[in-house]
Structures are given as structure tokens and as C-alpha cells.
């Protein structure tokens, strides 16, 4: 499908130019503004870089968000590790035990995968409040686990499909048990799949807002809830807002830029097969 032609080139270049402006402008303005003084911002030269780089904005923003950053890290890392582990086991069942009941489980998973969180929000908050789990990180960890294990299972299953069965069969003949085969062979071969699933779950949990907002306590405020607070309380201080937004987005964006291959594979695995 590779062909060349002058009008086509012009069309491609035009599209690239327009998209570049639309997609770079917001982030460019965010970065530039985060380094300005409030006085500089009132001069409204939004595209101009900061005269004096105000790295102090980041120090201030970081002081504001540090506890939330820690909460989000603890919650996201724990949920990711557990989802990937349980999802790995479940995914292996989906990929290798093709019974009629597997279809039923698959349909239940497909619905769970796209379930609007509202549908379970009220009971979840009730459970977390009565058990007092909401006062600790476990409240959000447990909630996110319930919602992310289905996603992790489906994703891992698609990756296990591509692990050749012959590997397992020869190990089976050597007398290895199913669990040994799973942990020592299949999981090792499917490590890139684990990476994709982990990145997707991590980003989803890190970015989640509704549950974090509903279950919020002073001890479990996540970074997204904190950023929304900052946006509300420092209305005119756009430099602080933008610095905090940049800090919030730094972790998932780093994953995207440096492990983009796994991120993309994860999305495609979820989209085209599940």
C-alpha cells in the first residue's frame, strides 16, 4: 500500500501540521505556564517561554501533592501486582480449559470489563464504610481489584493463546504439574504479556477518579482527587495548577513514552480479541 504522489504528500503534511498544533498546544502551554510567575501569566503571553524558570512552582506543587502521590503509588502498585497475578491464573483457565462453562465465564467477564462503576458504587461504599476499610488503603485496593481482575484475566488470556502448546505438552510428559507448567514455562514465555497488562492496569488505576473521589478520606486521597482540589482552591494560580497537573501525569506518561510498545500491545489485545 506504499505509493507516492504530490497531492497525497500535501494532504499528509497538512494533516500532520494541523494535528501537531492541536495535540502539542495544550501540553506546551501546560509546561510553559508551570514555570512562570503569576505576574508573568497576567501578561498573557501564553506561548512565550518563562523569562525566569520558576522551578519553585514544582517544589510548592510537590509539597501539596506529596502525600497523595504516595497514596496513589501504594494503591496502584498493589492493585497492579495482585490483578496481574490473579488475572494470570484466570487468563490461563480461559485460554486452556475450553469448556462450555468457559463461555459463560467469558460473557460475565466481558460485561464486567465495561461495567459502569456506578452500578456497584453504592454497595461498595457501604461495604467499605461498615468494615472501616475505607480508612486505609485497603478500601481502594480492594475496590480496584474487583474492577480490574476481569480486565487482567481477559488480557492475559489473549497473551496465553500465543504461547505454543507444544511447550506445555513436553513438560507434561516430564511429569510436571499444571501449576508448575504455568509458573515455570507459560508465565515466563508470556512475560511481555504480563508487562502489557501491568501497564494498562496501572494507568487505569492511577487515573481513576470516581471511586477515589467517593471513597476519599484524609488518609487515602489519591493524586487525581488532590489535583481536582488544587484546581478548585488555587483558581487563579495557573502556574501551580499546571505544575501539579504535570506531576500527576508524569508517571503514566513516562510509561507511555518508554514502554509504549507494551502499552499499545495491551490496548490491541484488549480491543481486538476481548
Amino acid at each position, binding site marked *: 500500500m506504499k505509493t507516492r504522489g504530490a497531492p497525497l504528500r500535501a494532504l499528509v503534511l497538512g494533516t500532520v501540521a494541523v494535528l501537531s498544533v492541536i495535540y502539542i498546544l495544550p501540553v506546551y502551554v501546560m509546561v510553559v505556564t508551570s514555570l512562570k510567575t503569576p505576574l508573568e501569566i497576567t501578561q498573557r503571553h501564553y506561548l512565550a517561554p518563562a523569562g525566569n524558570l520558576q522551578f519553585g512552582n514544582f517544589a510548592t506543587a510537590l509539597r501539596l501533592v506529596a502525600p497523595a502521590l504516595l497514596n496513589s503509588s501504594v494503591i496502584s502498585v498493589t492493585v497492579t501486582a495482585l490483578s496481574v497475578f490473579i488475572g494470570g491464573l484466570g487468563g490461563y483457565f480461559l485460554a486452556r480449559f475450553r469448556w462450555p462453562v468457559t463461555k459463560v465465564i467469558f*460473557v460475565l467477564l*466481558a460485561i464486567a470489563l465495561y461495567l459502569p462503576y*456506578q*452500578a456497584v458504587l453504592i454497595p461498595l461504599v457501604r461495604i467499605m464504610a461498615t468494615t472501616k476499610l475505607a480508612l486505609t488503603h485497603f478500601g481502594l485496593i480492594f475496590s480496584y481489584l474487583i474492577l480490574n481482575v476481569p480486565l487482567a484475566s481477559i488480557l492475559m488470556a489473549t497473551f496465553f493463546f500465543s504461547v505454543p502448546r507444544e511447550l506445555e505438552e513436553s513438560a507434561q510428559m516430564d511429569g510436571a504439574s499444571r501449576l508448575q507448567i504455568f509458573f515455570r514455562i507459560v508465565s515466563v514465555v508470556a512475560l511481555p504479556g504480563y508487562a502489557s497488562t501491568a501497564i494498562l492496569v496501572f494507568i487505569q488505576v492511577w487515573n481513576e477518579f470516581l471511586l477515589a473521589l467517593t471513597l476519599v478520606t484524609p488518609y487515602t486521597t489519591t493524586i487525581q482527587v488532590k489535583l481536582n482540589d488544587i484546581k478548585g482552591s488555587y483558581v487563579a494560580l495557573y502556574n501551580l495548577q499546571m505544575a501539579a497537573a504535570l506531576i500527576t501525569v508524569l508517571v503514566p506518561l513516562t510509561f*507511555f513514552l518508554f514502554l509504549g510498545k507494551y502499552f499499545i500491545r495491551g490496548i490491541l489485545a484488549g480491543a481486538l480479541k476481548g
Partner: protein
Amino acid sequence: MNPTGLAVRFARAKEAAVFVLPLLAFLLVLYGMLAWTFYTSFADWEGTAPNYTFAGLKWYRFMVGLDRFWVDLGNNLRWLILGVAPTVVLALFIAYLLEIGAIKGIEAYLRTLVLYPAAMSFVVTGTIWSWMYQPDRGVLNTLLRAVGLDALASGYTTDPATATYWLILIFVWQYLGLGVLILQASFRSVELQEMVESAMLDGASRLRILFAVLIPNIRGGILVVVSLLLISALKVFDIVYVVTFGGPGYATDVLALFQFIATYQQHLVALGSGLAMVIFALAFIIIIPYTVYALQRWFE
């Protein structure tokens, strides 16, 4: 069934149990909570203390009597149509350009360019775009006025007549990359590439190839993208909460935001459960075709 056959089956089931039981436990909790919400929507729970007295359709009747409910439903419909149709068309266009692209290095650049917002949260994008849209000193209006295009400067999300559309634009901006990624991947099947090549040998124009060869043969990919976008547009909460909180008035309110406010600010928990069930029912309708398609692909 002879005893050994049964024993083999039992052994297989025992083998499978280790893998599937943890997953089933989570699914059980999930569907248990769904049933709980369903029941609560028929209860008489009003106030902070739970009340599970059966009240029939009382709160559903209350819901359909509210103007706000119908405003929200209308807004959700706008999200479903305008958040999805333009995104799919644009994504198709960009994905096709990438395929026939012709300029080296541009594919990786363009893909990263449109895909990076997918890694960002709606709270972050909402924070940035709130400032872009701010009418008095916001970025867009300032830039427009600076180049003399004052006529184009607008109130964006502060104008009740257009506010929802500006919110939807943020959504399109954020989800376009996912559409491009998935559609481009579905162009890549070997059979499809062969069909395109033979069509080109027959002298078909690029536009004809797109509409006569590519689009009809990536129905699966389009179904996936449309379902993904529909479900995301339906669930929209963060953008509205962060940028306008449903305002001005109820102009940008959506079911998900009303559900949150009804439950946690007005403490009309039965109403909140009812709204949650409406959102769930719409989501359910959206994912049926998708689930059937996925099921066929998985178990073919």
C-alpha cells in the same frame, strides 16, 4: 460414563479450580454488588442510614418526573453521537493516511502524537482544557484576540447553549488516538493487504479502495472502536465534574454526575441506585453486539 472417565474429569476440574476460583470469587462479589444496587433501586432508601424497605417503582416514578433526568438523558445522547461518530470518521481518515502515508518517519510521530492523551487522566486533561477554555483570560480566546480573530472568541463551557459540545471536544481529543491505533491494526491483516493490492492492480482509486475494500472488511475493528467509544462516552463523569460540574445550571449535566450528586449530596440513595441501573442498562445494550462478536472470535 465409566468410573475412570469420571475420575479423569474430576482430576481436570481440580486442576482448573486453582486457576479459575480466585477469578470467580471476584466475579461473585462484583455481580453480588450489581444485584444489591438493583434491589436498592426498588427500596425506600432516603437519607444516610440504609433503608431496604421495598418501595416498588416509587423512585423510578420520581426519576422520570424530574426535568433534570431528561436534560441528562439528552446530554448523554449528545455525548454518544458526537463523542463517537466524528471520532470514528477522523480516526479512519488518519489511519488510512498512515497506511498510504508515503513519508518516512511520520507514522511513528503521528501515532505518538495522537495517542499520548490516552495515558492521561480526565482530571489532568480537564484541568488543562479548563484553562484553554477560560473565556476572559484563557489560552484560546487570548490567542484568537492576539491575531485579530475576536469574532471567533467564545464563552466555550460557560455558554449553556454550547457548553456540552466543548466538553465533548475534549473527549474526542483524548480518544482519537485509540481509534487510530485499533483501526490501523485492523487494516493489517494479510488477506486485506492482498485485496488492496489486487484492487490497485485493477486501477482502483485510493478513495474507492478505502470505501469498497477496506471499510467493508474491517467491520470487526470498527465495531470494537465504536463500542469502546460508546461505552466511554456513556460513562463520562470526570470531564464534566472537573470542568463544569454540570453547569451552567444543568446545561452540561449527565446521568453519571447526577447519580453521584443524588447519592452523595442529596442522599437520595434509592434514586441514585435507579440512575445507576439506567446507566447500566444503556451500557448493557451497547456491549451486546460487541460481546457476541468477541465470543465468536474467541471460541471459533
